[in-house]
């Protein structure tokens, strides 16, 4: 749809000029209209280097759309990222140069589409548990959004992303408890959420759970080969995790005292900290709380 609009806009606006001359820009538009994207790309790349077009919003708009369509047709990730980056850059140039406002709306619409596509790709990468790709495209999403509007409020997007990233790292850590880097990354992700939003219930709860589970896991590994000195050492190590977990679980509980999960969480943490009285108190609150 946007492509159709673009062609109409460019054709109408450019018709006097088209009639007057036949240059690379016109050729590029014709090739674009004909769906010959590779040729259109070569022509438009050359055109925007020319002195008469380097500051031409129309040329940059066409380039943006050529690259956008090439991006959509790309079959490999690296290739599509490069094409998308070029499309975004061209559309941004168009918006910046279009002082008359002739192309701004179309360019902005396409720019936003491509920016959102980065966020979607970040989500998709998280879905595939590919944290490296997710971080990479999320950074591109932020850069694109901020380039368009340096005052963009990406706070909530950042929180969503980092929470989901923390969950991915947690899942990956749970799959292989020896991969402590995943544990550290999950902690860092949730802590970054809390830094942005100290009142984020999910991050507080998940962080507490992560620490608690790590402490429990250490103790679960105790077996017949462990002698009393190592039991004490393991307990001391686990105690640190339980103590780390406690303030975050208390915070989550304070934010939402009627959540059964935090009551149970506190019961478990206090129990593992050998604080039977506090554990019993939260166990009682948990059992008195109606099912959600």
């Amino acid at each position: 749809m946007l492509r159709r609009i673009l062609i109409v806009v460019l054709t109408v606006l450019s018709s006097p000029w088209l009639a007057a001359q036949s240059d690379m820009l016109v050729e590029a538009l014709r090739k674009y209209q004909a769906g010959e994207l590779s040729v259109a790309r070569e022509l438009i790349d050359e055109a925007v280097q020319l002195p008469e077009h380097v500051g031409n919003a129309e040329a940059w708009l066409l380039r943006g759309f050529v690259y956008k369509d090439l991006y959509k047709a790309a079959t490999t990730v690296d290739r599509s990222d490069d094409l998308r980056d070029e499309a975004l850059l061209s559309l941004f140039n168009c918006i910046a140069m279009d002082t008359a406002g002739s192309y701004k709306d179309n360019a902005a619409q396409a720019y936003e589409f491509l920016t959102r596509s980065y966020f979607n790709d970040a989500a998709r990468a998280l879905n595939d548990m590919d944290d490296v790709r997710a971080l990479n495209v999320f950074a591109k999403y932020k850069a694109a959004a901020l380039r368009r509007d340096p005052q963009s409020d990406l706070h909530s997007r950042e929180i969503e992303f980092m929470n989901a990233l923390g969950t991915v790292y947690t899942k990956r850590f749970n799959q292989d408890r020896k991969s402590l880097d995943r544990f550290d990354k999950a902690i860092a992700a949730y802590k970054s959420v809390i830094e942005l939003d100290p009142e984020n219930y999910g991050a507080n709860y998940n962080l507490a759970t992560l620490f608690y589970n790590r402490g429990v896991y250490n103790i679960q590994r105790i077996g017949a080969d462990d002698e009393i000195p190592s039991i004490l050492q393991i307990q001391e190590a686990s105690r640190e995790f339980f103590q780390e977990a406690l303030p975050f679980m208390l915070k989550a509980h304070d934010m939402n005292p009627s959540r059964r999960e935090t009551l149970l969480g506190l019961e478990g943490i206090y129990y593992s900290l050998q604080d039977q009285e506090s554990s019993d108190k939260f166990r009682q609150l948990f059992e008195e709380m109606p099912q959600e």
Partner: protein
Amino acid sequence: MQKMSSHPGEAMRLLCRVVLNSCTKAMRLGAKSTPGAIAAMRLLRIVLVTPVFLFATVPQQPREAEKDTTAILQANYLYNIAKLVEWKDAEMRSGNFVIGIIGGANLYQELIKQYSTRTIGKQPIEVRKLPRSADVEKCHILFVGRSDLGLLPEIYKKLQKEPTLVVTEYTGALEDGAVVNFVKVNNLLKYEMSLSNAQKHRLVMGLTLKNLAHHVEE
């Protein structure tokens, strides 16, 4: 001409799928309906705060054995104590090495899981879940959990001349007659022991056991 299908709801749905993928196949990439997006956002909120971790399946019933850190620690302590104590009575040095448990269901399970195929010296470990009664069978070690403290006066009385190492978990247990008592010190589970009570049961507590105890009553 292609219609641009990307919209903010899609990203949220995808993020949801990250955490929902293993739980449900119901959500689909690219679903566009508004109710779907709302449901996805709701699910995301739920899922992000309810990961499938150790808490997730704990019911209102007693703690699950595998998450009962105290039971895991106590089981290991009992096993190590068994290795570091000498039973002077000849009859206790043959046959199975019996660990009796009253209360402490999770401790029993942990002992069965981790230690029931082990031996103390040449004696195979036998873990017995005993009924809630003071009429206890002959055991090398008898653990009485805090839920059954009411039985202890009678148990101490009945076992006072038996070669049974009574282990408990309450304040003042050594004064009452326990040989080993679990105590909580600085958020850690430790043990204390009474040498005089051990002697009454003809038990010799090893030096390592004494040295590692939080407190030893002579």
